[in-house]
């Protein structure tokens, strides 16, 4: 192989190594074609043109891949943000129910509407049964339309239930 042809081949091979796989096969096509060109200078010009074309195509391909990657990342971030917001909303809703329930219990106790002998039962009712029951009902009602919100409500409900059980057992 003449030095000119060798240089031409090396140039094409070099660019081919940097090219994305899809463009690489076209580089192989250019190299294959170059070996069928008899004139040395024509072969060199062919390879140089091919090198430029490969560079251009590779650049476009890389930019397209980068744009797709960026779009995927933005979409994933939006999904994650939406998920966190939904779960937090669920937690806030469950916490609101608990606060209302506890305030009701406190008011009942202040107003002496709860007998001291029934205090334990009232606490169980207002701290566990009502808030957890409402959480469960809300989760069942929202399971299909608001799956992520339900996850938040259930998570908060489970934490609340666990805390209450520990409180009462201890």
């Amino acid at each position: 192989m003449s030095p000119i042809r060798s240089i031409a081949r090396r140039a094409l091979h070099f660019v081919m190594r940097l090219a994305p796989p899809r463009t690489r096969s076209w580089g192989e096509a250019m190299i294959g074609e170059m070996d069928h060109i008899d004139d040395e200078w024509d072969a060199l010009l062919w390879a140089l043109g091919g090198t430029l074309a490969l560079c251009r195509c590779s650049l476009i391909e890389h930019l397209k891949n980068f744009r797709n990657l960026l779009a995927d990342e933005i979409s994933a971030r939006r999904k994650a943000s939406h998920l966190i917001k939904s779960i937090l909303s669920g937690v806030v809703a469950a916490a609101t129910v608990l606060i209302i329930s506890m305030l009701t219990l406190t008011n009942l106790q202040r107003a002496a509407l709860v007998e001291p002998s029934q205090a334990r039962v009232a606490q169980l009712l207002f701290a566990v049964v009502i808030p957890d029951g409402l959480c469960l009902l809300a989760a069942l009602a929202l399971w299909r339309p608001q799956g992520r919100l339900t996850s938040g409500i259930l998570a908060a409900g489970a934490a609340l239930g666990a805390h209450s059980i520990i409180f009462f057992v201890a």
Partner: protein
Amino acid sequence: MKERFRLSPQTALVLDTFLEKPRSWRYGYDISRDTGLKSGTLYPILIRLADHELVETRWETTESGKPPRHMYRLTPEGLRSARVRLRDYGHRKSSMVFLREAKI
């Protein structure tokens, strides 16, 4: 479905060359000589046409010692599309003739 590609004078030249022998397989250098387009212009056009599934490709093994050659021809869809697009392109035909003569 892929979006309609832009028909540049050079792409029109390549399609016109394919239409001379619609069902024959053509080599890159062969097309380059017929159209006068350099490899740097020709291959991006071929890549784009192949992406739009207007051109099909295959490798042809040749005589020993030489690497296989990549060959191209219009797909049935490419054939139909090329005829329609070149007909629409008719009013700019004179510029195509000019390009062919000038071997741009």
